[in-house]
């Protein structure tokens, strides 16, 4: 096992920045949600890498960071479900999924 912590962190940083770029520049709501999922995945990867790198023989409990990631996964699933249902509701009203055209606060 030669998978080093720093390599995982670099990978995670690169993918997180890709997600940030997507969220900032894209105008379609679905694409923004996809970029959010990419960012969440990058954070999960760094969590798992940290959990593995700081694992010692004395405190051998590998489950802590993984449970953390499981919670993130569950919240991501909830976020995707609610986000896409909001997307559907918005599409019914405005007939568009372009975030720039949805500019009313009043329903």
């Amino acid at each position, binding site marked *: 096992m030669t998978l080093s912590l720093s390599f995982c962190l670099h990978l995670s940083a690169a993918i997180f920045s890709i997600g*940030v770029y997507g969220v900032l520049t894209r105008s379609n709501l679905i694409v923004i949600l996809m970029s959010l999922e990419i960012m969440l995945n990058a954070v999960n990867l760094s969590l798992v890498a940290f959990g593995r790198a700081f694992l010692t023989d004395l405190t051998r409990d590998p489950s802590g960071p993984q449970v953390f990631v499981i919670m993130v996964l569950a919240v991501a699933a909830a976020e995707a479900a609610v986000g*896409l249902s909001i997307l559907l509701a918005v599409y019914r009203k405005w007939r568009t999924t372009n975030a720039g055209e949805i500019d009313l606060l009043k329903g």
Partner: protein
Amino acid sequence: MSFSDSIFWVFATTAVVPAFLILFTRSIVRMAFLLLGSLAGFAGLYLQLNAAFLGFTQVMVYIGGILILFLFGVMLTQRSDIPVREKVGPALAVPGFFAGLLLMAALLFIALQNPWKTHPPVPVTEPDTPVIGIKLLSTYILPFEAVSILLLAAMVGATYIARVQAPGAPDGQAELSDSNAEGRLE
């Protein structure tokens, strides 16, 4: 380069390259399938990091669940008169590019400068999955229950928000037939 090194590189490439290509793709359906590749790469990375349970959960939850949701979202909101294409103008792309670049530089700086007090990797003798199961129902029972309540609330809320409104409701009357078609698809 050893065999496990090359496997790791394969998974890392599978995670990064599709995520990067998403930035330059304009068809949303194609983006969803690129996202599939990226998520599969992450699953492989988890397997490499001795988190087998997470790897398979990733495949089930993300690829089997969230990605399918995204595809439904794309297909339910497609209009035949407007092609589902995305265009990024320079007014957004340039600031976004620099924001992403700055953030990546900051994260890489932290990752490189911080003297991580890591330990030599502990050899894994048994799978972690039983430990995770026991811990989830003993030590981490409170977050576990909180997340279940959150998922229930999200499910009820998503169903409520995306519901098809009844005839006579104040909104959505004009597009009722179309909405009904969408409701059946769900």
